[in-house]
C-alpha cells in the first residue's frame, strides 16, 4: 500500500505513515463490527443448544441486538465506586481493549497481507497475550471490592499456568516451520501431509492442536474455564463494579481475544489463509475468505463448548494445566525435535 501512496506524489515517510494508519483502520473497524456480530452469533448458538430462540426482537432475526446493547451501555452513567483507585479503575478496561486489538497486527490475512510482517511475529503474539491479564488484575485490585479481587487472583494464576504449556506447544510449531514469522508458518503448512494444508494433519502435531484449543479457552477465560467471572460464586468477577462504556470495553475486548485465539488456531494449525486442500482450483477463492471461514468455524467450536461443558472447579483447572498439559507438551517438544533431527529436517 505504501507504493500506492508514493505514486500520489508523497514522500516515503508520509506514504508509509498513511498506509499504516489505513491498515490499522482496515483491520480494527471490521474487527469491531465482527465482534458485535460474533456476540450475537454466540448468543444465538447458545440459545439454539438450550432450545431457546435467543435475541430475535431488534432488527431482522435480532441481528441488531449487539448494537442496541452497545447504545444502551453508551447512554448509561459511568459509576466509579468511592473507595476505588480512580486512575487505575479507568485505565484497566482500556488496557484490556487495546491489548486485544494489538495482537491482530501480525495475523496474516493473505500471502504477505499483514500489517506488521515482523520476524518474531509469534513471540509478539505471546508477549501481547500475556499482557491481557493486566486489565483483569488491575480492575480487580482497583475496584477495592472482594469479588473482583478474588477474580483478579484467579485470573493471574490461570493465565500464568496456561501460558507455560502454550509456549511449549508453539515451540513445536516453530520447530517444524523453522520460523517465528506467522506468514512463513502458514506457507510451511502448504501440502504438509499429502495434499492437506495444515499442521493438524500431522500425527505428531495433532495432539498439540487439541491442547492448544483447550489452553486457548483457558487463556481467554472462556467456558469451561471462566472462573474469573463465575457468576455462581463471584457475582460478575472483575467486572462487578464496572458500568457503562468501561463495562462494554471488557465485553468487546473479551470477544476480540476469543476471535484472536480462533485466528491463531487457524493460522498455526489449520493453514491460515491457505485453502484446506492443496488443489489449484481452491486457490481461486481469496485467502482472507478461507481464514474468515476457519475463524468462524473455531468460534462455533468455542460457543459449542460453552453451551455444553460445565465449569471446572479451580483445583481441577490448575491440575489440568500443571499436571497434564505441561508434562505432555514438554514430552512432545522432545519427541518432535528428536523426530526432526532423526529425519534431517534441519539439514
Amino acid at each position, binding site marked *: 500500500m505504501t507504493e500506492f501512496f508514493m505514486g500520489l506524489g508523497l514522500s516515503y515517510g508520509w506514504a508509509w505513515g498513511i498506509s499504516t494508519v489505513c491498515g490499522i483502520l482496515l483491520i480494527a473497524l471490521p474487527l469491531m463490527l465482527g465482534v458485535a456480530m460474533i456476540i450475537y452469533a454466540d448468543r444465538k448458538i447458545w440459545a439454539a443448544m438450550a432450545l431457546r430462540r435467543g435475541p430475535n426482537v431488534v432488527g431482522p432475526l435480532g441481528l441488531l441486538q449487539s448494537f442496541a446493547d452497545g447504545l444502551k451501555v453508551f447512554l448509561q452513567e459511568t459509576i466509579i465506586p468511592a473507595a476505588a483507585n480512580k486512575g*487505575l479503575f479507568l485505565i484497566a478496561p482500556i488496557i484490556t481493549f487495546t491489548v486485544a486489538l494489538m495482537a491482530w497486527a501480525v495475523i496474516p490475512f493473505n500471502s504477505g497481507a499483514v500489517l506488521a510482517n515482523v*520476524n*518474531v511475529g509469534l513471540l*509478539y503474539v*505471546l508477549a501481547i497475550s*500475556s499482557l491481557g491479564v493486566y486489565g483483569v*488484575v*488491575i480492575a480487580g485490585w482497583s475496584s477495592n471490592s472482594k469479588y473482583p479481587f478474588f477474580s483478579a*487472583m484467579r485470573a493471574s494464576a490461570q*493465565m500464568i499456568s496456561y501460558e507455560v504449556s502454550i509456549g511449549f506447544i508453539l515451540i513445536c510449531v516453530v520447530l517444524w516451520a523453522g520460523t517465528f514469522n506467522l506468514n512463513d508458518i502458514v506457507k510451511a503448512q502448504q501440502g504438509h501431509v499429502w495434499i492437506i494444508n495444515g499442521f493438524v494433519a500431522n500425527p505428531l502435531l495433532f495432539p498439540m492442536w487439541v491442547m492448544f484449543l483447550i489452553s486457548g479457552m483457558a487463556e481467554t477465560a472462556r467456558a469451561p474455564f471462566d472462573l474469573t467471572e463465575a457468576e455462581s460464586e463471584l457475582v460478575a468477577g472483575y467486572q462487578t463494579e464496572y458500568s457503562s462504556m468501561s463495562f462494554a470495553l471488557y465485553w468487546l475486548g473479551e470477544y476480540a481475544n476469543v476471535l484472536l485465539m480462533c485466528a491463531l488456531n487457524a493460522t498455526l494449525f489449520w493453514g491460515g489463509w491457505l485453502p484446506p486442500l492443496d488443489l489449484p482450483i481452491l486457490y481461486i477463492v481469496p485467502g482472507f475468505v478461507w481464514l474468515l471461514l476457519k475463524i468462524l468455524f473455531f468460534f462455533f467450536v468455542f460457543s459449542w463448548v460453552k453451551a455444553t461443558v460445565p465449569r471446572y472447579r479451580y483445583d481441577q483447572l490448575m491440575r489440568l494445566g500443571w499436571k497434564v498439559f505441561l508434562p505432555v507438551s514438554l514430552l512432545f517438544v522432545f519427541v518432535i525435535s528428536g523426530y526432526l533431527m532423526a529425519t534431517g529436517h534441519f539439514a
Partner: protein
Amino acid sequence: MIQAFAFYLFATLMIASGAITILARNPVHSVLWLILAFFNAAGLMVLAGAEFIAMLLVIVYVGAVAVLFLFVVMMLDIDFAELRAGFINNFPLGFVLAVVLLAELVLGVGAYRAGSLPLGVADGAGAATAGLSNTAAIGALLYSRYLFLFEAAGVILLVAMIGAIVLTHRQRSGVRGQNISKQVARRPEDATINVQPEVGKGVQL
C-alpha cells in the same frame, strides 16, 4: 529523525517510570510503574534492532515475573503509618546502601573516562552473520560457543526450583484429594444396585 525521537521518548519514559517505581508510596503502583519501565526497555531493544530480546523481555518480565510480583504485592495489607514508622530504624542501612551505590557510580564513570578494558579482540568473531535473522543469530551463538554457560544457567535454575519446592513442601495428613483416574474408572455397577423389595420388607445392603 523519527528514530532519535523514539529513542528519547522511550529513554525518558523509562528513567521517569524507574524513578517513580522507587518514589511511589503504594507498592502496587510501584509494580505498575516498573512494568512501564520494562516496556520502554523493550521499545529501546526494538530500536537497537534486537527484536528477539525485546519480545523475550516482555514475555518473561512483563508477562510472568511482574504478574507474580503483582500477585504478591496486591495481597499485602498496607498500613502507611507503619511504613513511615520504620523509616528512622532503617535509615542507617539505607544511607550506607546509598553511599555504596554513589561510590560505585563515581568509580564506574571514572573508570570509563580512563579508557575501556581490553575484554576481547574486535575480530568480528562474535558479529552476527549477514542475512541471518536476529533469532537465528542468537541461537547459533547460544548453542555453539556459549553452550556450557547456557546449560549451566539452566541447571542452576533447575536446582533453585527444586530447592524452593523442597523447602516449602510439607506432607499433610488427612487431606482428601481428588483422584480423577479412579473416578473415571468407576462404573455404575460398582456403585449402584437394583432391587425390587417385597411390600413390607426392607432392603439388606
